[in-house]
């Protein structure tokens, strides 16, 4: 559930207790998701179908975590899976669907319309400013959107003010400091210094805002490699608590420069769950989430053909 804005002293207290020293923190998926507790607020990196921390969500679902309150700038398949598996009953985001190719999410609709789960809507920029306020250590940031709309009306958590400088109407959006952030990157070192290629979405603000951060990465590189181009580091090691090397860690979504979305799998998934957002979702979870012995076995089910085709398309961004 939403906890409101965390008092500054409490936020600082949590951070002061965190081990921020330069230390190796490479572990397995199973170990990493221990940083998530039932009932936690969880911020999810990436956006829509891009750099989704799917392997971490896969593991959390296998762990049968409960009552996670999740947030993401734009949520898609991952939102379906979190609601459908019962891991989450509350999502804060600006947009929740499979994307224009597949239309509305029947899984979201079923869960929200039945009252079983909550989807709290904010504007996209408001979500960004909430993470940014959290990362800056301030309780709010001012914005000039949402005003006058029903998106504002149903979010009393945001507050209108008259600007003390100009008299203009502004909306103050409350800081969002998730207990845990889940973020997938192209590469990081064993300490958690992460480099992100291409679209960064809200990941940098999210990493700074969260009280704990779990990183999955396509590959772990040496700290020397990081230090040769420090201006490419996007997330500093001291806000990272766990590093897991998971190739194709966003599958069936995309990871910039490495693979595009696995469209055949997405097509099949949407066809399946839209027929029956409860039973067919359970079948899907059974086959792809609970049964495989490992993440690599899950990828095997998606299939070599599709993984390689997605990789060919993903790498083509650099063919120029």
């Amino acid at each position, binding site marked *: 559930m939403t906890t409101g804005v965390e008092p500054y002293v409490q936020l600082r207290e949590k951070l002061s207790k965190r081990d921020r020293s330069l230390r190796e923190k490479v572990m397995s998926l199973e170990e990493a998701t221990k940083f998530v507790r039932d009932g936690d607020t969880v911020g999810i990196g990436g*956006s*829509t*179908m*891009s750099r989704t921390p799917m392997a971490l969500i896969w593991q959390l679902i296998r762990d049968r975590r409960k009552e996670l309150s999740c947030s993401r*700038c*734009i949520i898609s398949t991952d939102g379906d899976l979190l609601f459908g598996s019962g891991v989450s009953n509350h999502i804060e*985001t*600006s*947009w*929740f669907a499979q*994307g*224009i*190719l597949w239309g*509305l*999410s029947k899984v*979201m*609709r079923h869960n*929200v*319309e039945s*009252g079983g789960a909550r*989807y709290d*809507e*904010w*504007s*996209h*920029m408001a*979500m*960004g*400013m909430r*993470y*940014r306020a959290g990362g800056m250590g301030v309780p709010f940031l001012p914005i*000039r*959107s*949402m*005003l*006058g*709309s*029903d*998106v504002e009306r*149903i979010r009393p958590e945001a507050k*209108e003010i008259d600007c003390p400088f100009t008299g*203009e*109407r*502004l*909306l103050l959006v409350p800081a969002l400091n998730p207990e845990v952030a889940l973020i997938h990157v192209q590469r990081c070192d064993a300490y958690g210094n992460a480099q992100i290629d*291409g*679209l*960064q*979405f*809200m990941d*940098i*603000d999210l990493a700074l805002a969260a009280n704990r951060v779990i990183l999955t990465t396509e590959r772990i590189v040496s700290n020397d490699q990081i230090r040769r181009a420090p201006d490419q580091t996007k997330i500093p090691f001291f806000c990272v608590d766990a590093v897991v090397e998971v190739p194709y860690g966003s599958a069936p979504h*995309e990871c*910039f*420069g490495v693979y*595009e*979305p696995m469209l055949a799998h997405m097509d099949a998934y949407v066809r399946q769950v839209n027929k029956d957002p409860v039973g067919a979702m359970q079948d899907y979870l059974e086959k792809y989430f609970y049964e495989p012995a490992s993440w690599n076995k899950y990828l095997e089910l998606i299939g070599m053909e599709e993984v390689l085709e997605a990789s060919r398309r*993903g790498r083509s*961004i650099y063919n*120029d």
Partner: protein
Amino acid sequence: MTDTRNYTASEILAVLSSRQLTDGQVVFAGVGIPLLAATLAQRLDCPGLTILFEGGVVGAFVEPGKLPPSTNDQRCTKRANMVLGSADVLLLLQRGYVDVGFMGGAQIDQFGNLNSSFIGDPAHPKTRLPGTGGGNDISSLTNMIVAMKHEKRRFVEQVDFITSPGFIRGGRSRAESGLPMGGMFRVITELAVFGFDDTDRRIKVLALNPGVSREEVQDNTGFDLTFDDQLGTTEPPTEKELATLRVLDPERLFIG
């Protein structure tokens, strides 16, 4: 060109929308028809059109046949001028760098308010729609072009929920709500092109699409329409427009 329509509803939507853009503008485009229409304009009369996408892309150049499934996909970034954070690209609108916001719409009302959140009572909705995404921000902060399908259930007197503000309750209510800039500029459908009255801010028909009658537009609209005194007729899509459009979307993902 005769009345024998050699184009789909989505095609005329894309073509007419693209004509609303001017060379040198900075346009923030949503996925689907807006992305396609902005790209079409860039390929035809507006080579200096700067296209922004919500994922954090500035100055995009979408490749033919590689239309992105969302504006947060890597395909949006190929040969772009800049890639930045997705909150930051929306802040560019707030600062004022963007001339036009360009989106699709699920439901619109007489004051140009858009609903993409709820059908029915938000507390117990009949249908929970995807939500605003950046729509609320874009329509709050700049001048808007909306491209959408014309159906009676989509053109309603008052939307169930204002997701993306148009002129709110008309008159000066938008500015009084704290939105002094921007507002609805044009709505394009397969039937007609709409503008908004300068004073009461109600929607009005500016031009009918080729072969479309006043009655046909009114019949597909859920409230009484006003027609502009200088009601015009839009030029049908040219062969060049259609050919270019079809090269951009050879799989007809968005042009139907």
